[in-house]
């Protein structure tokens, strides 16, 4: 069973992605990209301050609660932010952006939860990931198909494949890049 910290982390992961989806619907692609760019610069500044050992009044409790132990503070959030920014900036079609956000939020978030709770069958090329996690990724990313149809299916399969690879790049960056490749380059 995942620790409560990991479970809460994934809930934040899912909710942030859904919040980005809501933001896209409410204020559109241009304003959303501006918000995400500003958040990235603010996030980099916060991460920089934490790396230098400075205390930040409102941020420290959040980092203590949600950040993985023995990692650079804000590391996962930084790559999540970069992934979302590339999704907004590189994909022109809003349906494609919505699909990519669902795959990142629901697919990646639920695959970590299910994989660490029920995962027993390790993937032969990546011992850190399980087939149960991959299956959860495929199932919970399915709402993306509503926006993009068969192309969404292709994006889900490719993103699940990339997520399961033993890459040295954070999943939060690799998954949006996989979606951008499918939606922007293969179309």
């Amino acid at each position, binding site marked *: 069973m995942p620790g409560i910290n990991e479970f809460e982390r994934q809930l934040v992961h899912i909710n942030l992605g859904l919040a980005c989806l809501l933001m896209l619907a409410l204020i559109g692609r*241009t304003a959303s*990209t*501006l918000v*995400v*760019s500003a958040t*990235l*610069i603010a996030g*980099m*500044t916060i*991460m*920089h301050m934490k*790396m*230098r050992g400075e205390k930040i009044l409102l941020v420290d409790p959040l980092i203590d609660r949600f950040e993985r132990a023995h990692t650079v503070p804000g590391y996962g959030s*930084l*790559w999540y932010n*970069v992934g979302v*920014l*590339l999704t*907004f*900036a*590189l994909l022109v079609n809003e349906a494609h952006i919505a699909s990519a956000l669902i795959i990142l939020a629901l697919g990646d978030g639920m695959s970590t939860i299910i994989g660490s709770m029920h995962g027993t069958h390790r993937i032969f090329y990546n011992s850190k990931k399980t087939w149960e996690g991959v299956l959860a990724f495929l199932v919970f990313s399915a709402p993306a198909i509503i926006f993009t149809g068969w192309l969404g299916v292709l994006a889900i399969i490719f993103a699940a494949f990339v997520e399961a690879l033993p890459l*040295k*790049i*954070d999943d939060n*960056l690799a998954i949006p*890049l996989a979606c951008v490749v499918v939606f922007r380059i293969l179309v």
Partner: protein
Amino acid sequence: MDFITAFVSSLNNGGLTFLADFLNNEFNMAIATLALIGACTFVLKENRHLKVLVLTLLLGLAISASIKLIWHVPRPCATVPAKIPCPPDSSFPSTHTIAAFSLVAASLGYASLVIYLPFAIFVAFSRVYLGVHTFFDVAASLGLAMVSYALASAVLARIEGLKHAGNK
């Protein structure tokens, strides 16, 4: 054209145009970048991250050149008059922005970030201000600078791993 690009490129200030035009020249931009790196390395005595900084910068430039070769996006100045002559190459990505934000990405946790970050924000702003890039070009370039940092870190971690294995 998106409303941010339309607004920023409609601004007009003599001093700002002079500075933006100065950095638009590739030679001036390279000199400014090297001068900043040199100043931060020797004045702030920061050389521990020099390897990752240089590799991030080189990978960023390579990514930009590769994308420009295979993906042609027309510049905004092709349709709307700009403050400088319109460059003929692809609008996406902004090489200036990738270079400037590569310095920022590689300096996280180092004192020099305080110098690199305002420089990078100004460079990104200046590209849209001059009318040679759209807001989406520079936003994506910020993301691509982070990608080049991730790749540079992964490459250096791999090299370090091989060195350790070799020493054993």
